[in-house]
């Protein structure tokens, strides 16, 4: 059994599968894993609740009609504005599609709309403090900055690929 790779699990230095099965049914191991998870969750809950509160406040304070008034019609600035607005706003991706659809009807360029949709789902200014607390300040900052520029780059590449310029 020791040499059978199929029966080896992923829990360290190649322990047999049977040990994992024993762990799953052992009340001690179950209790320990539950307490560890509960401790980790207790640490995260105030941060998550803070993000929920911020998102609810942003959704209440920012009127949906505001988005259309921000764009200038400039092909260079609009994608950046789109990515910036998408970064600050947040919520369900469906909302970004609906706003994107409305912006399209208003004649806003697809370059700006694509950057807006992408930044909405990949960059999170509102949840940045939470990301920094749980994943590290530098990681959160770098990831969001890189994602912001990626949103603009992907928008350009997508619009070019579709010939929508």
């Amino acid at each position, binding site marked *: 059994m020791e040499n059978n790779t199929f029966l080896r699990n992923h829990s360290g230095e190649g322990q047999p599968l049977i040990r994992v099965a024993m762990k799953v049914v052992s009340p001690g191991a179950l209790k320990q894993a539950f307490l560890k998870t509960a401790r980790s969750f207790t640490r995260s809950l*105030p941060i998550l609740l803070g993000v929920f509160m911020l998102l*609810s406040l942003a959704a209440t304070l920012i009127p949906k009609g505001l988005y259309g008034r921000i764009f200038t019609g400039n092909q260079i600035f609009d994608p950046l504005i789109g990515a910036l607005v998408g970064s600050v706003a947040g919520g369900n991706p469906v909302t970004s*599609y609906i706003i994107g659809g409305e912006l399209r009807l208003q004649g806003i360029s697809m370059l700006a709309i694509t950057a807006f949709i*992408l930044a909405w789902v990949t960059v*999170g200014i509102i949840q940045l403090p939470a*990301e920094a607390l749980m994943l590290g300040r530098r990681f959160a900052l770098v990831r969001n900055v890189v994602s912001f520029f990626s949103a603009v780059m992907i928008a350009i590449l997508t619009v070019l690929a579709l010939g929508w310029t």
Partner: protein
Amino acid sequence: MIGRIPEKVGGSGIFLLSISTIYVTLGIIDIQVVRNALWMLGGLILRISPVLALVFGIIFLTNLLFEAGGIVRMLGEGSGLRGWIFALLGGIISSGPIYMWYPLLGDLKEKGMRESLIAAFLYNRAIKIPLVPMMVHYFGWPFAVILSLYMVIFSVLNGLAVERLTEGRGR
């Protein structure tokens, strides 16, 4: 005494306290805004509770079945292509808002998960298969397909860039 408060409540407590202060201040200025925000908050918590339970379940199973050595092998430095596949597929199939996954990723990071894979996972959270019909409805099939492809490619590039830029730096 007051100076010891940050020590006792920690970063997360200060964060929650700051936002509560914003609510209280806004409530003094315009109670209706806070009422609307709290109403929205209630709805948000109700919608998100199942995802929270799912994340709790995954962290519980990770704690039960995997030890740090296993996580490092699957998602650490030497995880290679398998690690990328886990991160990419995990990001695409995971549901709920991005911030719900921070506790799990923070936990996995402590156990040795690569930062590039965390970044790739978070980037792929943007690709939501159940929402593709909605995107197609608004922007068409070619847009949805090309955008999704670029997002997968950029999730890897993003991951590598983030790892490079945060290299050798702690929390």
